[in-house]
């Protein structure tokens, strides 16, 4: 177990350092979601009451599209100089590599969310009428749901033609229940009309199920030849 966590930590550290120096993923995600916010704001031009109804959907659609930008770069980076092949022949457990990538993407998308949420609040003049603290578990569980499957499918799609397009085609249909849960939970917290408990439980179940499957099957996908 200690080797697993040591390898995870080392890979994660490497990814974070690479990202810190280039800031490729975070910058492109930030600008992309900024564009989405502005375009949505133009096209709907909502009042405060309307925006409370639709904001849950807008926020998560923006984050979903932005996350795809980062997820696509996860493994593409490792293809250069045959790094991925080196991983394959190394005795390091594949699960450690996968966990490091997932945690790294989770950090990137969380940073994006932390920076973009104030902007959403300003542009759409949002104020939660329900228990606002519940947005934190919704965001954490929802981001994990997107990132864990996204990292896995990105590893699958590097083996296909036109892989940049392939990732959303695989990720979005499978993510429908998670997206529905995130959007509905956020909307019910913002409007304060319903309880978000069911959706938070559903997200937690989704996370547990798909994290388990990803960890079980990742080695098979990494070594597929």
């Amino acid at each position: 177990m200690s080797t697993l966590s040591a390898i995870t930590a080392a890979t994660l550290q490497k990814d974070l350092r690479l990202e810190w120096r280039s800031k490729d993923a975070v910058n492109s995600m930030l600008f992309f979601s900024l564009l989405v916010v502005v375009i949505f704001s133009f096209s709907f031009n909502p009042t405060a009451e309307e925006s409370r109804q639709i904001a849950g959907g807008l926020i998560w659609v923006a984050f979903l599209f932005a996350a795809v930008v980062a997820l696509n770069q996860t493994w593409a980076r490792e293809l250069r100089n045959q790094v991925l092949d080196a991983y394959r022949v190394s005795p390091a457990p594949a699960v450690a590599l996968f966990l490091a990538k997932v945690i790294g993407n989770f950090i990137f998308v969380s940073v994006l969310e932390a920076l973009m949420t104030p902007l959403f609040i300003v542009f759409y003049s949002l104020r939660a009428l329900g228990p606002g603290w519940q947005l934190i578990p919704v965001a954490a569980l929802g981001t994990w749901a997107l990132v864990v499957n996204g990292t896995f499918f990105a590893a699958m799609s590097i083996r296909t033609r036109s892989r940049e397009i392939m990732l959303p085609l695989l990720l979005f249909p499978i993510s429908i229940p998670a997206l529905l849960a995130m959007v509905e939970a956020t909307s019910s917290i913002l409007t304060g009309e319903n309880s978000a408990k069911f959706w938070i439980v559903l997200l937690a179940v989704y996370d547990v199920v798909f994290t388990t499957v990803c960890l079980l099957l990742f080695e098979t996908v990494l070594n597929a030849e």
Partner: protein
Amino acid sequence: MKRAFPIFAIVTAGLLTFALYEALVVAPTEQTMGDVQRIFYYHVPSAWTAFLLFFINFGASLVYLIKRNTKADILALVSAEVGVVFCTVVLVTGPIWARPVWGIWWTWDMRLTLTLVLWLIYVSYLVLRRFSSGSQTPLIAAVLAIFGALDVPLVYFSIWYFRTQHPSPVIGRGGELDPRMAHVLLINWLAFSCFAFLVCWSRYRLEQVKRDVDETQALEALLETRSVR
């Protein structure tokens, strides 16, 4: 074995003709909906057949992941393809019926949404098979099929909670179905399952031949480069 296929094809054609006659002539006309209701004999059997095929796809993918058996892979591919076709029939015949009866083409009702999401998942499965080339295709396709199958209960619960405030669908009144209608429905289902099986069978043979041809061509190309040297 070679003679079994045409015999089965003739039996299926006969069964489909009989089922058509039963659905259009023998089955009683529904009191409130009228003749539009007869689409039900195509809609429901197609849905059952599609779900059965998706289930077969899941089973075959699981077998492939464990045993790496080529036959299981071909079965998974074939059942997903034919399943998507039947699921499309369901999604097309549904609105044709819903427009005169419900007054709307589409509603985000439990069953409609679930069928649409299933269709999306399996279309993405077929797209993945199309876009990936090489020997690892069966493996990553099988992995995606497992993800899709695990997603179904989660989709079910999320939509169930999302849509509980809506009235239950009209077709849900299974207990009130006229026994003559149920009889016609079952005959149609049998005919449709046989038809699906027939299509899968011929597609399975086609895929096997295609793979044999690909393999032979690859071998020939290999031999040619050797002899040129």
